[in-house]
């Protein structure tokens, strides 16, 4: 009875060494490492501020006497129209963008990959229905969809997550389905079927791990675009409600003071750009590391 | 059709009279300089070709054949590829000393090349007629219309109906694509055609057709041909001269009869012996043991010595010098410094 054991251990080794190899290649990419470092720093900021900072006293407490002050030693990023320290609010706002970036992408990924895998694997009528529905859904511009969904559900962080997450589904569905279609025709799938492996097991153990690379690539580019989308929605008023220091919302509020107090706009903008840039650079690096054939 | 071919030959003959030796390669040395190491691809090659002759450049993969051909046209990929030494003369033009604009005039007009893989050799978004006509317009200054008509004639010459000149490459099969490539190469009736394994990527049945066509055109148009191949059968069919290459050197050179009947070099002997013998069903295959040496770490002595059954210490110590058997036939083999050395199974 040794054969089944060695077969299983062999399978476990393969993904590990593949991941290890990918990590090794990724490490060589300086840009990607910088991006990763920035993201880790941002995550740490988000964790620290959420745990240790008191929301009510530090973030939302109104402080009229000190309102609209330019950057100074006491307030490195200046203060906003309610007298609150912009630096503190910006740092605290990290957690919203990170949650939406990761969360929305995760929602899109889970739903999209499942739908795509089912569509690709079972084919036939099911595939047609899923893909046509995806096409219809993709025909609706994402921001409009997001607006309507948030309008329905109300402005809050979870709702924003859902709104942006749903718009990320089509990309994942499409890429998963096309990967599954390619893999489905490979011989090792035929072999697994021949020895009677149930369909679900095949999907989980063979199909999905082998489709991972392009899914990871799509995911990494999605995080950036989800973050931008969420910021945009917040800016238009469809995001996390005031007084929460979400970056898009902060920028929206600062519009009235754009002439007199540009720092209110600039610093949150800077943070958004840095975070999305870090994700994009890391995503690019991941893409290169996962498939060396794509390197120049 | 034949009348026009003859006309071409007549005007070309007037020019060719001043160009008897159409191609001369002298002591060509080519390296690929990579980041960590240098590939010594070609290590001193010389040969020459007269008007209408065909030479076969034979050897395994990695022997330096394609590199030689690309160097003749000065088309080596320039970052890694460097021509370290040598002279290349095409009809009196010193290719390695010419400026790019002058080279562009010679390529396609006096010397042209066809490559191994027809599937990727054609531009997918231009019609085949346009691709042939482009060459004609560039070198012969014809108008668009005239060039296109000539292109259609070239297609007919290679056995494709002229109406198909408006079709795109993806509408042709592999064999037909290769014919288009040949049509492009011969469109301006060059003196020399370099053919780099033109039939290797094709089906066996198509191979014979394309080969026959190349041979036929070569004869009709009077083109000299450098046929690069690893297939001795192809060489036997169409070549006048043979150069056997190994690790970037020509180890045996001579006429077809010299090399095939009076084989002298151990490597050439090995090549012939490794051909399967159809009539003797019980005999075993006799491959040459071992592998070609790593071109980044070539040994100081004869490169074939590690695999050679006749090798001696002298062979391994120093590079062999050419031994001539007659005007045309020479080998690079140290053993021939001894007066009585003979191969065991060939050349007797």
């Amino acid at each position: 009875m040794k054969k089944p054991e060695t077969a299983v251990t062999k399978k476990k080794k393969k993904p590990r060494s593949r991941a290890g190899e990918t990590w090794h290649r990724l490490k060589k990419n300086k840009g990607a490492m910088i991006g990763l470092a920035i993201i880790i720093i941002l995550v740490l900021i988000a964790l620290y501020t959420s745990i240790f900072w008191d929301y009510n006293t530090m973030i939302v407490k109104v402080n009229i006497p000190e309102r609209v002050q330019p950057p100074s030693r006491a307030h490195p990023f200046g203060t906003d129209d309610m007298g609150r320290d912009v630096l503190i609010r910006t740092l605290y706002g990290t957690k919203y963008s990170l949650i939406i970036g990761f969360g929305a992408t995760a929602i899109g990924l889970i739903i999209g990959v499942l739908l795509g895998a089912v569509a690709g694997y079972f084919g036939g009528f099911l595939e047609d229905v899923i893909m046509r529905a995806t096409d219809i859904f993709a025909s609706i511009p994402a921001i409009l969809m997001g607006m309507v969904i948030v309008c329905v559900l109300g402005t809050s962080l979870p709702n924003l997550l859902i709104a942006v997450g749903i718009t990320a589904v089509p990309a994942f569905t499409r890429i998963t389905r096309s990967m599954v279609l390619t893999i489905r025709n490979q011989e090792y799938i035929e072999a697994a079927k021949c020895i009677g492996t149930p369909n679900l097991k095949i999907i989980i153990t063979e199909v999905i791990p082998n489709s991972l690379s392009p899914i990871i690539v799509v995911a990494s580019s999605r995080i950036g675009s989800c973050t931008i989308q969420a910021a945009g929605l917040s800016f238009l008023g469809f995001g996390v409600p005031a007084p929460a220091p979400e970056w898009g919302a902060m920028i929206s509020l600062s519009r009235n003071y754009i002439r007199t107090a540009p720092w209110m706009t600039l610093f949150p903008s800077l943070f958004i750009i840095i975070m999305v840039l870090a994700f994009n650079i890391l995503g690019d690096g991941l893409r290169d590391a996962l498939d060396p054939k794509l390197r120049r | 059709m034949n009348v026009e071919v003859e006309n071409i030959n007549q005007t070309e003959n007037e020019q060719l009279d001043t160009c008897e030796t159409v191609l001369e390669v002298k002591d060509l040395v080519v390296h690929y300089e990579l980041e960590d190491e240098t590939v010594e691809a070609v290590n001193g090659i010389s040969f020459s070709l007269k008007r209408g002759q065909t030479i076969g450049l034979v050897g395994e993969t990695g022997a330096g054949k394609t590199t030689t051909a690309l160097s003749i046209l000065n088309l080596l990929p320039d970052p890694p590829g460097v021509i370290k030494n040598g002279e290349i003369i095409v009809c009196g033009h010193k290719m390695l000393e010419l400026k790019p604009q002058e080279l562009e005039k010679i390529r396609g007009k006096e010397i042209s090349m066809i490559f191994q893989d027809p599937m990727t050799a054609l531009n997918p978004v231009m019609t085949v007629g346009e691709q042939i006509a482009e060459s004609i317009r560039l070198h012969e200054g014809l108008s668009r219309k005239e060039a296109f008509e000539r292109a259609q004639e070239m297609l007919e010459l290679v056995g494709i109906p002229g109406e198909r000149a408006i079709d795109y490459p993806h509408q042709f099969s592999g064999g037909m694509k290769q014919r288009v490539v040949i049509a492009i190469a011969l469109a301006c009736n060059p003196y020399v055609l370099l053919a780099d394994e033109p039939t290797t990527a094709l089906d066996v049945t198509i191979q014979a057709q394309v080969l026959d066509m190349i041979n036929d055109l070569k004869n009709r148009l009077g083109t000299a041909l450098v046929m690069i191949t690893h297939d001795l059968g192809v060489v036997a069919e169409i070549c006048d001269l043979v150069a056997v290459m190994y690790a970037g050197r020509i180890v045996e050179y001579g006429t077809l009869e010299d090399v095939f009947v009076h084989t002298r070099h151990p490597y050439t002997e090995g090549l012939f012996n490794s051909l399967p013998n159809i009539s003797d069903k019980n005999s075993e295959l006799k491959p040459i043991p071992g592998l070609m040496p790593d071109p980044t770490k070539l040994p100081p002595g004869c490169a074939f010595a590690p695999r050679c059954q006749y090798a001696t210490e002298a062979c391994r110590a120093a590079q062999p010098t050419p031994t001539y058997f007659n005007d045309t036939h020479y080998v690079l083999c140290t053993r021939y410094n001894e007066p009585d050395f003979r191969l065991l199974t060939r050349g007797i």
Partner: protein
Amino acid sequence: MIRYIIKRLLWLIPIIFCVAFIIFALLDLAPGTILDTISTENLTPEEYQRLVEEYDLDKPMVYRYAKYMWNLLHGDLGRGEATGLDVWREYISRFPATLKLSFAGLIIGVALAIPLGIIAAKNAGTWIDNLVTGFSMIGISMPSFCLGLILIICFSYKINLFPAGGFDSGFKSMVLPAVASGLLMAGTTARQTRSSMLEVMRADYLRTARAKGVPEKRVIRKHALGNALIPIITSIGNTLAIMLAGSAVVESVFSWPGVGRLTVQAVNSRDATLTCGCVILTCIVFVVLLLIVDLLYALVDPRIKAQYTAKKPKRRKEA
């Protein structure tokens, strides 16, 4: 080919039906109705009831949906409940503004990106390449409203070069918004151009062209670029579609009287008819634009054209 176009356009019908249904369903679920956004304090109960009946708010959502679709099929997009204005007229009057903005962004983006991308590809691995890649990365990482606001700060307030908003100053007022929306286009297109050119540079048919004696300039211009442009055009088209759809944000920043702003206003006021109309019309534009991109693609790449014009093979069941 015509068959292909018609098939694609026919898709619009189910799309419209589904989108309208989704919008109606969602807005129906939303708390509050149109009546909450217009001032109802001074109305008598009868007048209030009359409004309820006028907007069919006492009938189930499906009724309103069916009525809407019926009107739609007759070409009537209805009147916005909040404003009382005709939906079609409002959309159409604002559409040219959005179109102008998107195309200005497109031109700026492409004019910048393609040469930069070619330069980057030609000098791959050098500092020039890194600079262009860095610029493109920033382009795609910057939300358009951030860029818009930053541009306003720099060029409208610190240096008074361009107006901060509105439509009035003609050409000048278009510059900042066009740049803001064009940067995304520039970034994606530059990246696509670079990677496309790099891939094409390695192609065998370039070697064939050189062996024919084609001058290097022409090799790059006609053979390399001709092939590289194909994915570039697709990328430009897709990005344009995204720009058009996302115009809401840029229009808000610059108070640009376009379609995006109209949609935002509609959603905010829970105006189902107006929202539906805006979303449906924008969807149609989206779909038509993507179709045009696909057709352009076929125009440029004869292999794709062959696919579109091929007769449909009979479906075979898998063995």
